[in-house]
Structure formats: C-alpha cells, structure tokens
C-alpha cells in the first residue's frame, strides 16, 4: 500500500517546470505570470549586474531593460535550455551594452583572441590571504577597484564564476564559448586580478602571509533543468 502510494505520489514541480509554466502563461497574455517571473529572478539579476556597475540607478535600468528584452523575445525562448541561463545571458549583454553606450568600461582586449592554458609561474606564487583586520566592506571595495581595471573577456568570467558561482559548463552556455575557453579565460582573469591587486594594495600584499583552507570550493548551481544541472565536469 505504502509502495503503491509512493509510486503514484504526484511529483513536486521543479523550478524549471514552474519557469516553463510561467513563460507559457505570459505568452497567453497573463501579466501576473510575467510579474511572477520577474520576482523569481530580480534579486539574482540585481546581484549579477552589480558586477558591472556600482550605480544603483544604472543597475535598476539594466535589470528592467533585461526583463523587457526577455519579454519581447519570449516567443523565441525554447524550453530545452534553462530559463535562468537564457535570462542571465540577456542581462550580461545588456550590462555590457549599457557600459559601452555610456563610454565607460568594459575595456576590450582582443575580443576575438583566446589564450592557451599556461602552467602557473613559480616566480609569482600568488597573494597572501587578506588581513583579518580588513572589514568585508573594504574587501568589497578592493574587489570593485580591481574589477574595474579588468578587460571585458576576463571580467565576465570572473563575475560569473566568483559572484554567481556558476559551473564552467554554465558559464560556457551563457557566454556561448567552449569550456576550454572558460577555463583559459578564468586562469588569465585571476592572473590579471592578482597583478592589479598587487598594484592597488602593495603594502598589504607585501606584509601579509598565512595558510588557506584546503580542498575545492563548493559552488552554487543555477536553478532549472539546464544541461549543466547535476552533471559532472567533462572536458
């Protein structure tokens, strides 16, 4: 009986199922359904766009434009890919367009070029861990200052990896590049970050030292049923 009940218990709809349902309802003219889609992703997009600009008004503009673009393209969205990845791709492109329009970063350095993985240099062993006396807000300011010096191909992979905690596969899908390119750009982005950090914070860089915890970092996955969900990394 218990087994029978279990085998026939209705499955809880996943976040991806709910996205698809809301997209269909929006396409059928349901404004409340679209408002619900916005509510589901607004905080995530505010956080993502924060990696590109510190202006609150600009962040709000970009997120609003992202949702309006998503609405106008909703008929072309295919449910085989994750809605969140699709939406984040629009947000990244909108943020980059906005910055270009206003004549600011992102700096673009050989956008078509790519770099091969290099073995980490032994001559530059890397930075010491941040001083415990540094407040989180100070570290955030330092991060922002360094990020602003990074050319665009590096900035996006770093934001998506370090802030959004996306997997290599999710970043590859979002930026429409290969996993190898993600790995390569991430490697170079961190090297650039290290150089910029040493330039901006030379005194901290010089004096500090200490151990770091071992083991790989856990990451957050994008919600949804995208091909990245639950799959091991494959190269």
């Amino acid at each position, binding site marked *: 009986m218990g087994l029978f009940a279990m085998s026939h218990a209705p499955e809880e709809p996943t976040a991806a199922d709910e996205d698809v349902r809301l997209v269909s309802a*929006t*396409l059928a*003219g349901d*404004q*409340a359904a*679209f*408002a*619900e889609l*916005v509510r589901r992703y*607004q*905080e995530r997009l*505010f*956080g993502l*766009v*924060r*990696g590109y600009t*510190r202006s*609150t008004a600009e*962040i*709000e503009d970009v997120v*609003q434009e992202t*949702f*309006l673009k998503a609405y*106008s*393209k*909703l*008929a072309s969205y295919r449910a085989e890919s994750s809605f969140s990845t699709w939406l984040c791709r629009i947000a990244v492109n909108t943020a980059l367009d906005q910055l270009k329009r206003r004549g600011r970063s992102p700096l673009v350095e050989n956008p078509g070029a790519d770099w091969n*993985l290099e*073995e*980490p240099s*032994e001559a530059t*062993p*890397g*930075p010491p*861990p*941040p001083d415990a006396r540094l407040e*989180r807000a100070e*570290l*955030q300011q*330092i*991060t922002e200052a*360094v990020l602003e010096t990074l050319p665009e191909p590096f900035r996006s992979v770093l934001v998506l990896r*370090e802030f959004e905690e996306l997997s*290599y596969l999710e970043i590859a899908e979002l930026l429409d590049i290969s996993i190898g390119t993600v*790995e390569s750009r*991430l490697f170079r982005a*961190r090297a650039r*970050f290290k150089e910029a*950090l040493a330039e901006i914070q030379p005194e901290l860089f010089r004096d500090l030292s200490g*151990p*770091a*915890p*071992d083991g*790989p*970092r856990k*990451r957050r996955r994008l919600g949804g049923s995208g091909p990245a969900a639950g799959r*091991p*990394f*494959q*190269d």
Partner: protein
Amino acid sequence: MTRPERPELPLACARARALLNRYGDGELEESLAAPLRGHLLECPDCRAMFAAERNLRRWIVRPEAPAVPAGFAERVAALAFAGAVPGARPQPAPSNEPALRLVLWLTAAAAAALLLLALALGSLGRPGGEELVAEPLPEVLQQLDQIEREFQASPAWSPR
C-alpha cells in the same frame, strides 16, 4: 647543447599544477581529484602553489547588491505589457520586420501621392492672374457720381 635555466618539474608536479585551477573550482572529476589530493599531501611546493591559488580567491569578495525596489516586478510587467503589440502579447520573432517595414513604406508613399493629387485637382478650378479683372460699376453708382458732379458745379456749393 644548452641547459634549461631551471630543472624540469617532475611529471607528477607538472600534471598536478595544470589541474589546480579546476580542482580549486570544484570542476575536477573524482578520478583525477583523488590522485591530486594524494600528490598535494606529499608535495610541499604544489601545496604552496595551491594555497596561493586559494588565497587569491579570498580577496575576491562579492559586492553588496542594492535592494530591489518595492513593486519592481509589477512595474516591469506593466511596462512590458503596455509596450506590446495590440492584444497584450509579446512581440513576435523579428522575422516579420522586413515585411512590416515594406508595408509601412508603401503606405507612406501612397499617402504622399494622394496628397499631391489633391493639391493638383484643387488648383484646377481657380482663376489665373490674367483672369482677375474688375467688374464695371453698376448703373445706379454712375448716376450718383453724375449727381455729385452737378452739385459741386452749382453756385450754392462751396467747400469748407
């Protein structure tokens, strides 16, 4: 034959270091991660390199995002639906845009042609400059002029 400036790394170290980034990101499959962990336990140089890699990531701190304004979702949804095509439906895929542009262009051209035609037709019934001549005075006005001239010629009339 020239000697390399620094000795070649043992194969295990070279392979291990190529995997450190992926391992640090949690992207390395377990079949490679397990032997890498073993190598890191035994090799202080690779362990130091991995520690430096980890330290760098501790400097990268996500900035605080601003709070989402109250009513943001409702406002965006209202904007989206207000700007949509009649029927409050999302815009169709942009494949129809060239056809729509052609229809709009043809409509504008037809409107311009109609305007020109109306102006041409309107000007047909109007007299030209040479046709604008004064009508002769009516007879009664000529008689009044004659009476006035006779009155001014009489001795009883004198100008003030």
